[in-house]
């Protein structure tokens, strides 16, 4: 039997430890290998069926991948995304400001809008706007109580493209306003008070103190909305807008190559979302709440405050 070495402390002997440098090993358990085996089996099965099932018609997929019709559709999809995202964000900003107003009628109106547009499916909204002429066949735009007015034929202006942009924008505005409002809510009351006690006007306070601090909450969420919107635009194909999906459908309506063309469309959507997710994840790393703070380079020095968490927003505003 080993004689256990002891060290005597004031309250009695304790076993002493010899410092030895040895590797520590955590043994792999069966479930680690099983997880790998199952995952490999699933992926292999998917690849196998994709290669051996000739009905996928991969040659057809590749031959249509860059045809003019598909590329035009791609362009329409991108334009729709940009237009409805841009307009939706602007309108969302207005709605967010209204929603935060201390005047009850103003905030109530914004609340009503948001509830309505978030509470009904965007597909229904799109079809609704396309058929709005059934409700209001003629609008007249003019100055109230004067004779100056221009009649507008709603049927003529509400083309599928207009309906698509209007529908997606109005819907997006409701979501964006909530994101923007959340950004403002994330800035503490004390920041407003500090700016006000320095005598800053409302505009200066927002521009230099509050808005820069809302960005970490708003920008990553907006990036997600862009990616979501890109896919959401495929809904406009029901209106006959020649977007990516509708272009693919137009081709397979003639050639009956349904599956290969849906694959073409899917691959393009996938490529676009992957391309967008690169800047998105960069932005997220810079701004997102969970990674908002990081260690300073001076973390090892003994200086007071070194090694504390720092927000990564590094721009100096002055």
């Amino acid at each position, binding site marked *: 039997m080993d004689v256990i070495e002891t060290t005597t402390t004031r309250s009695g002997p304790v076993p002493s430890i010899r410092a030895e440098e040895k590797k520590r090993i955590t043994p792999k358990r069966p479930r680690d290998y099983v997880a790998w085996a199952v995952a490999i089996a699933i992926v292999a099965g998917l690849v196998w069926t994709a290669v051996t099932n000739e009905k996928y018609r991969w040659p057809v997929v590749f031959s249509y991948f860059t045809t003019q019709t598909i590329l035009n559709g791609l362009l329409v999809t991108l334009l729709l995304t940009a237009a409805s995202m841009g307009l939706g964000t602007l309108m969302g900003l207005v709605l967010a400001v209204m929603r935060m107003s201390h005047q009850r009628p103003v905030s109530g109106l914004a609340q009503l809008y948001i509830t309505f547009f978030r509470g009904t499916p965007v597909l229904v909204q799109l079809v609704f706007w396309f058929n709005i002429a059934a409700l209001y066949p003629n609008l007249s735009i003019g100055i109230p109580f004067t004779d100056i007015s221009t009649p507008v034929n709603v049927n003529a202006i509400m083309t599928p493209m207009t309906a698509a942009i209007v529908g997606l924008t109005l819907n997006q505005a409701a979501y964006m306003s909530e994101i923007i409002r959340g950004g403002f809510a994330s800035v*503490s009351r*004390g*920041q407003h*008070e*500090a*700016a*006000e*006690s*320095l*005598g*800053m*006007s*409302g505009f*200066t306070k927002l521009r*230099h*103190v509050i808005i*820069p*601090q809302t960005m970490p909450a708003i920008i990553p969420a907006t990036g997600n909305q862009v990616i979501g919107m890109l896919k959401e635009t495929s809904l406009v194909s029901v209106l006959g807008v020649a977007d990516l999906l509708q272009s693919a459908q137009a081709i397979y309506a003639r050639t009956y190559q349904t599956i290969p063309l849906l694959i073409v469309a899917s691959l393009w959507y996938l490529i676009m979302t992957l391309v967008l997710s690169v800047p998105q994840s960069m932005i997220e790393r810079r701004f997102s709440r969970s990674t908002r*703070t990081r260690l*300073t380079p*001076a973390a090892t020095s003994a200086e*007071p*405050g*070194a090694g*504390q*968490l*720092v*927000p990564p*927003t*590094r*721009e*100096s*505003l*002055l």
Partner: protein
Amino acid sequence: MNPDGTIVARKLCKSFGRHQVLRDIDLTVAAGEISCIIGPSGSGKSTLLRCINGLETVDRGVLKVNGEDFGYVEKDDAYHAVRPKRLAEQRARIGMVFQQFNLFPNMTAESNVMSGPVLVQKKDRVACRERAQELLASVGLSGCGHKYPAQLSGGQQQRVAIARALAMEPTIMLFDEPTSALDPERVGEVLAVMRDLAGNGMTMLLVTHEMAFAREVADEVLFMDEGIAVERGDAREVLANPREKRTQAFLERVL
């Protein structure tokens, strides 16, 4: 007489809903005087301070800061609230230091100090930067100008906050429990800066729990409880020999 640096309040009343937090408060602070407001939490001390720079509005009573009606104008037998622009001008002459520092986290220490003069007083940026460096040096933080608030300790942040308020060249400095959120070992450095300031003749009104500091630096002490100004007088006198029962009970508990 130059009324700069004076605060006069008569019968100030303030309620939050049904809860009356200030009941007929009288307060006089002469130029260059240092006054401390003490009392248990919820007694209305912070609210009183916040009324003096317009972070809260007063329901009733008269408030004159720097000799001017603060936040309202008297017209036709009534007090009319002033426009936001005028209120901002009046506030710019009053420095405020918060319990939670409230530095702008998106700006460096130097930019925080410059923010008032540059953004509000529209002064020359280069001159303001120089002045900011001087102010940071005067609170013992030369060389910390490029750091962001999150890189500074609580005591350092509070000293930057004091420098930021001083950059506006205020006639009055208000302190709302400036050391309550600090580690005990950081309290001293902030009090040292405040002691310097007091020595330079700045009018100061502070809400504090630092009784030793109050005894050492303050000219006057106001003890508040449940929205009432219970006792007011010479700082050393009130702290050593309080006349009122409630003051005695409070001081026994905190000293």
